[in-house]
């Protein structure tokens, strides 16, 4: 009868143990929790600064500008993290950028994950020509180097006058070339799971393919994919920052760490003086990515010592 116990339960136990017992994982979880708290509390942590009250529009992601000088200001009482070369308040940008980071990381990973799981599970379960076609499509998408493909796609999408002003083009671009790994991963597992006893039992009981996939196959194969995805969240945030480096992320002045960092790169020659330009948004970016990596690592160690291929970039 042990064979009929879905492996997920055992995995869940190991998972709990990994997250609680591992110091690194605990650090990662604490980091992510702290970022989540900052993101939720953004309107109270960083309200529209009094000095720039006139510049606060309806969109809180537009970082208010205090003055027009192109010389960045060091941290002060008015600007705890200083200002950028365009006098955007860095503290405000870092706080609201937390929301952007979660949005970007999760909203790239989730669609990519869902799409990849759908394609991979369907292909693996159906087999035959469906599998063949799906895997050729996967190969076409994998023939693009990930980051390079995202650059091309984001360049096109951002030309739209409305969408181009948001985080959407870069997010869609990254998600469009991020799903293939999940599809491959889950397909391989589905191939083995579909021959398991409990699947046969369900089939014998007259369950339809869709129901079997939803109720039996996917729940028993999705954990490794989830782990891979959790490891990728940080990578996606970094890749998004990489797109910002090429001016393909968000418009100047949008509360996004990568964008603030990219804007600071002209001051890198004087970092001894303008350290705050890189330290705060850069620190946030690295810690955020680190949090996801630590948590993802722990999950992976708990569930599967092998790693799935993740996207490269950033």
């Amino acid at each position, binding site marked *: 009868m042990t064979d009929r116990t879905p492996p997920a339960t055992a995995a869940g136990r190991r998972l709990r143990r990994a997250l609680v017992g591992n110091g690194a994982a605990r650090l990662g979880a604490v980091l992510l929790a702290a970022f989540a708290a900052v993101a939720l509390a953004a309107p109270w942590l960083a309200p529209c600064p009094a000095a720039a009250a006139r510049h606060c529009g309806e969109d809180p992601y537009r970082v208010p500008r205090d003055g027009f000088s192109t*010389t960045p200001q060091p941290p002060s009482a008015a600007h705890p993290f200083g200002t950028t070369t365009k006098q955007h308040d860095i503290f405000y940008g870092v706080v609201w950028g937390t929301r952007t980071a979660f949005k970007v990381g999760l909203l790239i990973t989730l669609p990519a994950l869902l799409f990849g799981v759908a394609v991979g599970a369907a292909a693996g379960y159906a087999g035959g020509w469906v599998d063949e076609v799906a895997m050729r499509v996967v190969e076409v998408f994998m023939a693009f180097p990930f980051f390079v493909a995202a650059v091309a796609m984001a360049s096109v999408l*951002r030309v739209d006058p409305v969408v181009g002003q948001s985080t959407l083009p870069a997010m869609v671009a990254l998600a469009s070339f991020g799903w293939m790994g999940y599809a491959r991963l889950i397909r391989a597992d589905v191939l083995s799971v579909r021959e398991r006893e409990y699947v046969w039992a369900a089939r014998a009981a007259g369950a339809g393919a869709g129901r079997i996939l939803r109720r039996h196959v996917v729940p028993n194969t999705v954990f490794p994919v989830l782990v891979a995805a959790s490891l990728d969240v940080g990578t996606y945030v970094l890749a998004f920052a990489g797109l910002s480096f*090429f*001016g393909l992320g968000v418009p100047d002045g949008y509360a996004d760490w990568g964008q603030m960092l990219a804007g600071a790169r*002209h001051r890198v*020659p*004087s970092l001894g003086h303008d350290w705050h330009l890189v330290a705060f948004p850069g620190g946030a970016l690295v810690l955020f990515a680190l949090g996801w990596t630590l948590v993802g690592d722990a999950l992976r160690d708990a569930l599967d010592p092998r790693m799935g291929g993740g996207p490269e970039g950033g």
Partner: protein
Amino acid sequence: MRRSRLQGPTPRRHAVVTLILLAAAACRGAEPAPAGEGSPASAPAPAGQIEASPGAAQAWPASKVPGDTVVAAIALDPASLDPFWTYEIGGLSIDRMLYDRLVDFEREKPDAFVPALATEWSTAADGLSLTFTIRDGVTFHAGGTLEPHDVAYTYRRGLLQDRSGGPMWLYLKPILGVTSITELAASHAGPTPAAGGDPPALGDLPAAARQAACQAVQAAVTADDAAGTVTIRLAAPTPWFLQLVAMPYASIVDQEWMVEQGDWDGTCTDWTRWHDPAAEETVLFDRANGTGPYTLAGWKKNESITLEGWDGYWRTEPAWEGGPSGPPRIEHVVVQNIEEWGTRFAKLQSGEVDHVYVPLPEIDQVEPLVHAEHAGGDASAPRTVVRDDGILTLFKGYPTATANAITFNFAIGTTGGNDFIGSGRLDGDGIPPDFFGDLDVRRAFVQCFDIDAFIRDVMRGDAVQMRGPIIAGLQGYRDDSPIIAFDIDACGASLAKAWGGKLPATGFRLVAPYAEGWTEAEAALDILADGLSRANPGYKLEKVQMPWPTLLDNINNRRLPLAMTGWFEDYHDASNWAYTYLHSVGANSGSQGFPPELAARLDTLVDQAATELDPARRDALYAELQQAAIDNATAIFMNQALGRSYWRREVEGWYIHPLTPGTDFYSLSKPAP
């Protein structure tokens, strides 16, 4: 030439816009560049100024560039090296070294000339023809001999090639009285099309008309090989024509060599084959056979251009006192295109380059490297030693022929929808398409723009305020002419008067796009928005950054309510500025949609002033135009840029010419210490 217009320098990687964007960048910073009074060395460093960041006591590495070589790192690569095709700084600054013209500017002067390939010249009494005597014994780099027919061929080829969007309108207008060769051919085909109608394509015109256009060009520029002369006939007297002869566009090529390479054969039978080519379709795109002091050793596209000094250079006597002669002292010139500022700066610090283009926002970072400053465009300007251990000479504060303005669109386009004007009505969430048709609105926008903040914070003091479209030093410029001053209260009062007094209650909202990467435009719009919101929180101006394709589409459909524009003058005369900013088909004013009455008045004045020969009357006419621009508040005339250029200390002989882009490498030398 339109400088930055609606685009600014890109954040390094967009070749898209890059060509011109970067042209704009170089124009502002590298060579003909902005500057200002700057802070004297003794003054306390302003807040945020970098105090000798990499350690004041640090000795900078010695130059790694050999004494016979100059390496310049800029952020720009030519679009083409064909002098008649290219209309951007990158190509012109190289062509200037590869080729010679009939006459040269006398060093830095825009209106004094010295002989070059022409030994002498004369203008007919009626001002309608110029005759040049061509120099003997000049050979082209590839071996051909310069003869008068080469000169005639050069001009004719340029006029007939007339690349769309290229520089040839500058020559067509004085020589043939038209702005394009198609227009010339159309005029031979019959009655000119009604105003507003699309001009026909060249291919749609009868063969006879095309033939006639070519013959008109042949007749306008004629050579007499026996007499050794070339004659150019003008359609109307043109006081600035000699400037055009001295510009790099008019670089002389070898007819025999050109024909051999497959370019236009010099006849009228098949000339349209070479008309309006794409960049890569002309023989001179990435090759050159001139008579200049340098030969083209290599152009690695988007990377670097290498020039080699030419031993056979014809010049044996200096063109001006102390000027260079003989083969160039700097034998190798490498012009690198490095768009990443950090990389450029690091190369400067480590001594790998002699010159870098420094964007305005970064000038404080270069401060610790400066040894001495010259308050002007060459070494004769007053010099102050700033730091003994510095490695750079800084030239700054010289006027450049570049300026910025924010132009208002009197008739905003709505075809295909327009997000920039919101609801399109005066309901607080938009503006009507003719919003700027109201003089009080335009005046108010000028009054709400804090020009002093712009010059101080954004231009870093490297600019002077304009008093209308015409820059200082030109006809019609008065340094005491009335202007509309920055005044928030007056701005509020003007807006309260506008549109029947509805605005204070309803407010308005409009969106102003700017080209991404053009930080000056972004800041200018922020300053304007700030001023408006101070006048009344209900007055909302939002800026939005746009990639070039999106921007171009909107410009083509005249959807922009207002736009930051830049201009780098084509020739040093008030007519260039008046035409650009006030004429109904001017480069910047052409898309402003002036109402018929205003357009008619301005067009008449602009045309009348351009052809007026009496200097005093001309001056008065331009003064009237300058005043009309202010009275009608057609634009926020912002600033004329001052220049700034950084060179390694050991490089000598640099000077700036306000019109000719780039550096005269032929004048440079690196004397042994």
